[in-house]
């Protein structure tokens, strides 16, 4: 299992976010996460992909983006690749949670469950967002249930 990679490429249309959610939930489950954590990871990856469509592609639904899931000994990594213009990292901040207005929650949902949230600066064109969650596995064989 360690080192296993699952990768998926979808059109940048919100219609396919549910596909990403399904895969994300399965991968988190295979890592042995409990149901509440699986749900949080699913939401976080969905938010990151929604941001690709909304911000990187400005709503253009004719592009594609890729998500790579990697299960390591002690971490679960999700890498999201788009071909949009470089993100302005200075904007990359959720709203103050006490400032009630639509929007600005996605980054909070991502950061509460992933231990690391970072754009890969080595990527030449497009963006590569790398999310890492540490695994604390009691039972390696959970997925075999």
């Amino acid at each position, binding site marked *: 299992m360690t080192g296993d990679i699952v990768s998926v490429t979808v059109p940048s249309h919100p219609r396919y976010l549910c596909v990403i959610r399904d895969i994300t939930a399965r991968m988190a489950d295979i890592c042995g996460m409990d149901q509440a954590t699986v749900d949080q990871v699913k939401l976080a990856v969905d938010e990151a992909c929604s941001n690709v469509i909304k911000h990187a592609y400005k709503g253009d639904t004719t592009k594609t983006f890729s998500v790579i899931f990697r299960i390591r000994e002690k971490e679960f990594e999700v890498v999201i690749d788009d071909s949009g213009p470089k993100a302005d990292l200075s904007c990359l901040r959720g709203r103050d949670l006490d400032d009630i207005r639509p929007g600005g929650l996605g980054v*909070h949902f991502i950061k509460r469950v992933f231990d690391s949230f970072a754009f890969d600066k080595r990527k030449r064109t497009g963006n590569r967002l790398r999310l890492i969650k540490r695994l604390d596995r009691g039972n390696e064989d959970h997925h075999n249930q």
Partner: protein
Amino acid sequence: MKIIITSNSGHDVLAISGEVDMDTSPELRTHLLEFIHKRTPLLLIDFREVSYIDSSGIATFVEGLKGMMVYGGKLKFVAIPEKIGEIFSFAKLDRVFEIYGSIEDALHR
């Protein structure tokens, strides 16, 4: 996502089932804006069959609430499943929205 609109004791009830996400929330938004346009005094949202909501769904409700507050309308959430409620409370929105266990509670308390 599926939306069914009914009425209970003369009050509008919008019942949602399935997943509210970036793909489906625009349809929810259209319905909310219609109620706001009609200046609906009280709108109940039945969450019982909601299996998923993301930030675009939440943003849609925040926008809807703000639109109703303009004319003094009331938006009440009903029967929120635990895993959906957890998302509202993390976003500190359980203090912003009026949340009830059942339609009866929402109408009589």
